[in-house]
């Protein structure tokens, strides 16, 4: 048996053990589905939710919220990070503003998200943006600050004769590993904000909304189903991203990066 299959087998065994222990505790120790739904409770809740067809729809809505927020965070965070990392004037100018806005918890933006955008996908997206923007910005900024000087000088003597060319051909590729790990962190934060945004009524759809709604209905097995789907979807997004980064963007680096 090689190490990989051993790792897989042990992983599956551990998960199975947790499920069995969970089932025993839920059924024989706690005994109330409202306090702790058992594995079988959750499984049948999952089956009936799957039958009603709302699961997929809510997942898609959540992914849409997440996509809007992440896209906006990327479109603003990367360019502003580049400006601040490359041009000192931009750094001096924007840094105080960023430093004041950054410590505000993203969820504190929820009231204004609702007032500005109403109960729309954009409102949920805005909350995710508020969480994802700063990690991307700071990662891009420090990625640019850490570009080795010799790369920039090599670029200059080889014919890059404008800031644009130096950024495009030297600094940006050099900063990609930093930006990629910033995006990964941002996706984690954004995913958390997604649930909170939907729970707080920014949206009437989505996994976070359904989780909260089912809590009001005291449908605790359903709550667990949504918890698990949220975790699993977050995991899948992270895996896809990491795989893409390692295989496509960072082939030039030996070993794992993001």
């Amino acid at each position, binding site marked *: 048996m090689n190490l990989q299959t051993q790792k897989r087998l042990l992983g599956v065994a551990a998960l199975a053990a947790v499920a069995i222990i969970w089932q025993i505790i839920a059924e024989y120790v706690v005994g109330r589905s409202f306090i702790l739904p058992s594995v079988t409770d959750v499984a049948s809740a999952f089956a009936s939710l799957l039958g009603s067809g709302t699961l997929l729809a809510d997942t898609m809505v959540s992914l849409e919220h997440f996509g809007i927020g992440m896209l906006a965070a990327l479109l603003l965070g990367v360019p502003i990070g580049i400006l601040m990392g490359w041009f000192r004037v931009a750094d001096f100018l924007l840094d105080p503003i960023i430093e004041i806005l950054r410590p505000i918890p993203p969820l504190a933006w929820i009231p204004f998200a609702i007032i500005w955008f109403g109960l729309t996908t954009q409102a949920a997206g805005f909350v995710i943006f508020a969480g994802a923007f700063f990690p991307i910005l700071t990662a891009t900024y420090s990625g640019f600050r850490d570009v080795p000087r010799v790369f920039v000088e090599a670029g200059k003597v080889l*014919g890059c004769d404008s800031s644009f060319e130096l950024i495009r051909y030297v600094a940006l590729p*050099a900063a990609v590993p930093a930006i990629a790990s910033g995006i990964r962190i941002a996706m984690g934060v954004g995913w958390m904000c997604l649930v909170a945004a939907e729970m707080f009524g920014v949206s009437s759809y989505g996994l976070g909304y359904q989780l909260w709604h089912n809590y009001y209905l005291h449908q605790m097995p359903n709550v667990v189903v949504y918890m698990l789907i949220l975790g699993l979807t977050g995991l899948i997004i992270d895996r896809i991203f990491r795989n893409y980064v390692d295989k496509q963007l960072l082939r030039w680096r030996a070993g794992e990066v993001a």
Partner: protein
Amino acid sequence: MSGVRIANVGKAFPKEDGTVTQALEGVNLEIGDTEFICLVGPSGCGKTTLLRIIAGLETATTGSVTVDDRAVTGPDPKRGMVFQEYSLFPWRRVIDNVAFGLEMKGVPREERWRTADHYLDMVGLSQFRDAYPFELSGGMRQRVAIARALANDPDVLLMDEPFGALDAQTRNRMQKELLFLWEQTKKTIVFVTHSVDEAVYLSDRIIVLSPRPGSVQEIIVIPWSRPRDRTSAEFAEVRRKVLRMIDESENAQ
């Protein structure tokens, strides 16, 4: 003609306490077309600074540098540079590192790859054209860096202790290869080194700089043909002479 004329060049670096460090003062030097010269001197004498001024990466505080009678005002691909640190772009394959300068000039891909392949072949690394820099040894990386500088067809090749990080054997082999490249391409080479042995082995003239503020202290012409025999008596004699010169000027400080 690709002569370099350095006229009365001085360089002062401002320090944090408001005073300045005078790195170079009154440097005068003429370098002929296709000449191979080495800059040596005690550490801190400003030899790298002088090279960087020729490259256009630093600006002289006083005086001027001209190449082919044109004043140096900033970096230019006509003056190729090979750095002491590994400077290959790690995100580009070897071939695209060598072709980088041509890409900046807007040369179409097929054509720039043809040129890059030619120089890669010249440094003997054709089989690594599609490798990434992390897959290469230190000596190979510097050979690619030389190919990358040559692919721009510069008038002058500036080299800042390019073999400083290599082990002694690799270093000797690289010196031999560099002379081969120099004979093939007929470039003017300005080579900074702290190894007197390297300077005697490589150059037409050794320029000995004085301690800070650096200026030209002595010029030693080495008329011998190449390849040179490091073990010969005359080689040892010149090496001893230069070493003593650097030593004395350092102790006189």
